[in-house]
């Protein structure tokens, strides 16, 4: 019985830690009316429509050669080559990719490619989460590790991807352990994880360090050990820091996957379609925009998945802190 009491007290401590100065009474914000929910969707759609309207207005009003100050073009050209009509781009999505028999409709091709990239990015993100949180735990536990590791973690993000991608692929092509053979998509996932782990490590470290001394000392008076303090206090307290970090990590993983696909020419993903269709942009300008839209939707889906994770963990996220 004492165990449960201890747990209850620990949870209270964690919640108090996660909510500096106590958030507004729970329930008040949660019971959002359906009307407000709908309004958010309406505004979201209106925002997209607004971009489309601005695009078309600019295309209609601005000179075909764009706006130049001296020799420098500050606003883009408005020709159909540079800025296809919104409806042309949408209509193109509904047409087959090429005239070849059995060619997919463009939007389907994009969706399939986006799914492949999402899978690779998710694998990279998962590795990033494990590595990031692992590093944060080590750094939280030992001050010396924080001093020693954190500069390297920051330096790691200054290595340009262009230099990094061929090296990863080259190493990967040599990895062969028993039946396991390194696949090309793993190189891309590794690069994605390389970009993803950084915000997660930094955010998780901040979160794990966030409980006030008063809370950690309370845990000490309960005679709670390191692991108990970690699971009852530090992890719950870290959630508000971790969620934005995970979201940043997800966005980074998607960017890393797309860039690495372009870089290594991996077949099947959205990055490959980006360069492939960019080469066809002279004769078919609207087509080149399709993978760009695909990449945007991909980013939204990735960030949205983290929002779902946030709903599951909502008991711990009274206040969100930016990483």
């Amino acid at each position, binding site marked *: 019985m004492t165990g449960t009491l201890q747990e209850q007290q620990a949870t209270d401590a964690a919640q108090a830690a996660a909510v500096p100065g106590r958030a507004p009474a729970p329930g008040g914000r*949660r019971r959002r009316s359906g009307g407000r929910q709908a309004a958010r969707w309406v505004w979201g759609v209106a925002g997209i429509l607004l971009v489309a309207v601005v695009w078309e207005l600019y295309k209609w009003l601005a000179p075909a050669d764009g706006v130049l100050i001296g020799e420098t073009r500050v606003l883009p*050209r408005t*020709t*159909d*080559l*540079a800025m296809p009509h919104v409806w042309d781009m949408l209509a193109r999505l509904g047409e087959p*990719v*090429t*005239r*070849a028999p059995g060619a997919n409709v463009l939007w389907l091709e994009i969706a399939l490619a986006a*799914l*492949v990239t*999402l*899978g*690779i990015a*998710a*694998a990279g993100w998962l590795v990033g989460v494990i590595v990031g949180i692992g590093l944060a735990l080590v750094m939280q536990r030992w001050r010396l590790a924080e001093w020693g590791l954190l500069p390297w973690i920051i330096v790691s993000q200054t290595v340009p991807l*262009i230099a990094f*991608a*061929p090296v990863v*692929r*080259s190493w990967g*092509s*040599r990895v062969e352990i028993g039946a396991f053979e390194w*696949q*090309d*998509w793993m190189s891309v996932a590794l690069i994605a994880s390389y970009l993803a782990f950084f915000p997660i490590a930094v955010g998780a470290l901040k979160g794990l360090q966030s409980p006030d001394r008063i809370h950690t000392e309370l845990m000490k008076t309960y005679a709670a050990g390191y692991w108990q303090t970690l699971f009852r206090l530090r992890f719950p307290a870290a959630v508000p820091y971790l969620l934005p970090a995970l979201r940043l990590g997800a966005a980074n993983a998607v960017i890393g996957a797309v860039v690495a*696909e*372009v*870089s*290594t*020419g*991996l*077949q*099947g993903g959205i990055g*490959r*379609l980006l*360069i*492939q*269709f*960019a*080469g*066809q*942009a*002279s*004769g*078919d*300008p609207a*087509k*080149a925009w399709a993978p760009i839209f695909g990449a945007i939707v991909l980013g939204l*889906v990735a960030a949205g*998945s983290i929002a*779902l*994770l946030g*709903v*599951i963990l*909502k008991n711990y996220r009274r206040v969100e802190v930016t990483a």
Partner: protein
Amino acid sequence: MKHSTRRGLAAGAFALSAALVLAACSSSDDSGDTGSDAGGDELTEVKLQLQWLPQGQFAGYFAAVENGYFEEEGLEVEIIPSGGDIVPQDALANGDVDYAIAWVPKVLGSIEAGANLTNIAQIFQRSGTLQVSWADSDISSVADFEGKKIGSWGFGNEWEIFAAMAAEGLDSSTVEIITQDFNMNAFLQGDIDAAQAMTYNEYAQLLETPNPDTGELYTADDFNVISYQDTVGAMLQDAIWADTERLESDVEYQETTVAFLKAVIKGWEFARDNPEEASSITIAAGSGWGPSHELWMVNETNKLIWPAPAGIGVIDEAAWDQTVEGALSAVNEVGASPITTEPPSTAWTNEYIEQAIAELGDEVDTTGDSFEPIEVELLEGGN
């Protein structure tokens, strides 16, 4: 209770998206593995690094895979596409692959920088690089470049321009070099006076673009075309490169090289005699071009290979020397040259390609004396 249902829904949705993601992962696994099952254990695994995405430029290699020519020679060949940052000769020098396709001047630069590579087959006998300007412009030869905005892709694709200019007494400071994108938009919109174009790709991109003034596709009459093949700047392009040290010391690699080249020859012979099928094979192998563009590409690539009077892939010493001279004379806009000294004698050999041609004997027409290109009609957007 309402909360827990909502949370359950969220958990379900999260699980669903995770499952989708995993499914996507595993499906990409499957696609990567096909082919490895086909080969028995006697087949020698060979990796071939291309210099760009799969496209008609490499149709012969894809045809050799699809038609089983490599398997007939006891090889299981994996063709590895390149992307923006994968340099074929670096991948070869690092030992990631067994053979690589690359342009001669680029590899000469790598050899001078320390890579130990040998040209074992000069598949493209002719240069396919053009410089395209508008028909009503005053640019009709390399000498007219002076003071103009000249487009180039950079990354070692620009040396023919500078070699041809050097022969005209122009240096790179007399023109404005503008880096080109993957497409011809910069030229079409007037940012470039003369754009670099390959006969098999970018030139076709122009011919499949509608003229906004007429609504009809542009035609060859709309452009002035300078072919570097007709200038002293012409350099050798797609060649098959092998690892020099392994060629010297590894008997098995030598045998594999001959077997590999035999299958490659058969692949290109197939592409020559069946351009439509070779084009379909390339599309099936993952090329994203539309059918008319792909067929154009295969046809134009054939023109660069065939006829090959000395036999496909045999290196013409005069053309090699011209490439070396051009590479020595070319100076780009930052004052750099691809090479500063003559390449070593190990940089090329006809030993393996001649052996391959001899072993094929009368079975295969390796010169293509009677080759006639087909007529390809380009449709809008290459479709």
